[in-house]
């Protein structure tokens, strides 16, 4: 066990865990932020997607010891009141079916739009192919991303 000081959603927190503990389980078990979901444990499904700095990463495959002082953003910290343009677009398009993968989808989409203000279909395919939606809400995810891309403020 070792103490790690993490910056999560703007707050500094300490956790005492084994250094190889993936960020996913640090968040879920120790910080009690459960928005990031366990789906595969091997970075293949994207349900656990969070941001390290501005980059979307699979938290199931990032040991806590590799995070360093990079800022961590989870779905809970993406906006103060669920009003990030991507979240709003998700609601407007009523994207979710079971909803389990959607936090990961939203985090991947938000990271895409931070880097690319007008993503093409090919850009969306490339950014979102790491996120599986078993209910297959892909046409709505695509539509919601395009709608969010048109919003003026999507920081």
């Amino acid at each position, binding site marked *: *066990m070792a103490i790690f000081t993490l910056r999560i959603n703007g707050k500094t927190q300490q956790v005492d*865990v*084994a250094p190889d*503990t*993936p960020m996913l*389980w640090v968040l*879920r*078990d*120790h910080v*009690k*932020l*459960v*928005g*990031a*979901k*366990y*789906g*595969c*444990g*091997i970075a*293949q*499904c994207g*349900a656990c997607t969070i941001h390290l700095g501005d980059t979307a990463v699979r938290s199931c495959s990032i040991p806590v010891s590799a995070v360093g002082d990079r800022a961590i953003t*989870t*779905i*809970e910290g*993406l*906006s103060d*009141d*669920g009003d990030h343009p991507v979240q709003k677009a*998700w*609601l407007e398009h*009523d*994207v*979710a*079916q*079971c*909803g*389990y*993968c*959607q*936090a990961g989808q*939203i985090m991947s989409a938000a990271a895409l739009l931070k880097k690319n203000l007008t993503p093409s*279909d090919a850009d*969306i*395919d490339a950014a*979102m*192919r*790491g*996120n*599986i939606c*078993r*209910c*297959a*809400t*892909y*046409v*709505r*995810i*695509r539509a919601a991303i395009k709608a969010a891309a048109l919003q003026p403020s999507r920081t």
Partner: protein
Amino acid sequence: MTIVSTSYSRRSFLKTSALAGGGLMLSFSWLAGCASSDEELLTLPKEWFDLNSYLKIGENGVVTIMSPNPEFGQNVITSMPMVVADELDVDWEDVIVEQAPHDPAKFPDAMLGQFTGGSRGVATKWKALRTAGASARHMLRQAAAQKWNVPAEEITTSAGMLRHASGKSARYGEMASAAAKVPVPKEVKLKEVKDFKIIGTSRKNVEGKKIVTGKPLFGIDYWVDGMLIAMIVHPPAFGMRLKSADFAVVKAMPGITDVFPIETLPNEQERGAFDTNAFPQLLAVVGRSTWEVMQAKKSLQAEWEPAPASSMVVSGFGNKSTVTVPAGLEDSASHLTSMEAAAARPGRVVRKDGDPAGAFKRAAKVIERSYSAPFLAHNCMEPMNFFAHVTADRVKVAGPLQAPGFIEPTLSARLGVPADKIDIEMTRMGGGFGRRAYSHYVIEAALISQKVNAPVKLLYTREDDMSTGIYRPSYHATYRAALDADNNLIALHVKAGGVPESPLFANRFPAGAVENYLAEDWSIPSNISIGAFRAPRSNFIAGAEQSFLDEVAEAAGKDPIEFRLELLRRAKANPVGKNNEYDVDRYRGVLELVREKSAWANPPAGVSRGVAAYFCHASYAAHVLDLTIENGKPVVQRVTSAIDCGIVVNADAATNMVQGAVIDGIGNALFGGMPFKNGAPEKTNFNTYRMIRMPDAPKAIDVHFVKSEVDPTGLGEPPFPPIFGALANAIYKATGKRLYKQPFVGETPVLG
């Protein structure tokens, strides 16, 4: 006007209320601090008045409606309360929705209980939901009538207001206290379809905000103080069982509190129809955190041995039978060989009309084709999990399951605890697709909690989830058609089977439309456990049948839609045989609608089109699929869907459901498959089990519903089976190659 008898009385309601600890249970009390902002916008009342098991009204007019069935993506948690709210005649903005706990007394259903599955959710609860709303409205009107001293019949309602021609009016909240004292009516008038105000509109998912903000909603998110984490270790192959295990090393690992074997279902315990379980003997690893338990699980050393054949008594839905599970380590190659051999032998005749043998003899042309498909894993995104806290006098379990009423008797028998001491809380499910109707994991969690004497959350790893069974079976079907010299279909023969069950539906279309018809089935026993998977059996046979009919239409030189309509006209005018299950007009309706909406006669330039239609789960679906081939890969440009599922409750949510079913079907048709070798599933995670992803999804899906006043007939499953056929038929148009074996594309590297 429809008058229905109410199925509950105030007395029975009060009694069950008391049993549940008084008043309506809040399903997610551990989420008290996480009310959605939508709920926060509503001012919560100071006092609630229960009008029946489905609803309570606050003195300020806010209404809480209980959604009786568990939710795994169909959005019944929105559509079911919409039905109640419409009959109650309340403003949807004044409604708060809560997930009901399992409570057969409050939400009775002799056959299925509070079951989400079989596309029966809204259909089976339709009357109860409407009655709940209508009888509460009746009680409010009675209360107002007494207060205003006018006949109740003269009081009208709208949007949560009671009004009388004399000018008197009151909000529902003002009358709620008095209404709660009015006797529950023995029968009540329901609205005319034309008077629906909420049913048929589009309402956003009531849990949408919680979903997009990552609130704890799912079983895997469940957490209580002092809770331990548990995982299981199961045999590496079907046909194997535990021989021995060494716990010492693992017990000493960090964070681990206990390791022990459990027997979830002793062979002598009678099983329910949904107690399917290939691995009743397991090892349990329990510890303080998920990662520590995961690591320990990997280190657990166990020896496994071949299991002998076994038999067990299975009862359910009025039947009792002895089921024998064979010994042996099976593999997919030998399954295919055995299926082809079985298909070459005469099958069991399930239906015969006319003289099929004679018709085939005199045919001008005979077409014979065989189709096959592999096992499929459900792969719900949320792996199986459940919370359990078993104490001396009470059992509390909570988590994702489709059918609380199926598991409760099994849990009660296994623990020796009466059902009234068992509380089942239903969390939102991260997918179901049939998999969570088989909730053996509830028993596992409870036994582990009992052993360690603590609250426990059991979690399957993805590898456990994918390798513990309950798969969609592997299927095979051979179709033969006889055409006369004028290209009329004079005989059809279907022989279908599988490991371990046949996908045959002998009485569905085109039965009834062909003069000479023969349907046979066969099956091959297996120890690989199987279960319902979105549209069981239909999910294979529809694709085979609809691909075959496409080929027959082509051989007959006929347009594929017109060919089907011609058969349906025959089935309508002069049906062949008995027990034809489908409604010809509704079947015809979706074909005609999809023909119109897809502009079938004028396809877009450069695309190849396929059509398919199917009837299952009481509803009708037809799809036209447009694709192009780019870089050697099929790219679905557009799917046009026509659906007849009776009355549509929540229009946009229903559209979402159809879109998902279409993509799910395309994914499984192209990529789906679970191969076995020496009894072991060869894929255990998403690096090898290919799922459909964003780049493979259609560019557009247009969904059209047949306008209908028929009571809802189900939607989760019916759009799924025919898309397999529409895809195969479109690929044929594009490539000239007919596809007979799923998956069509097979495995290719997905992601680096």
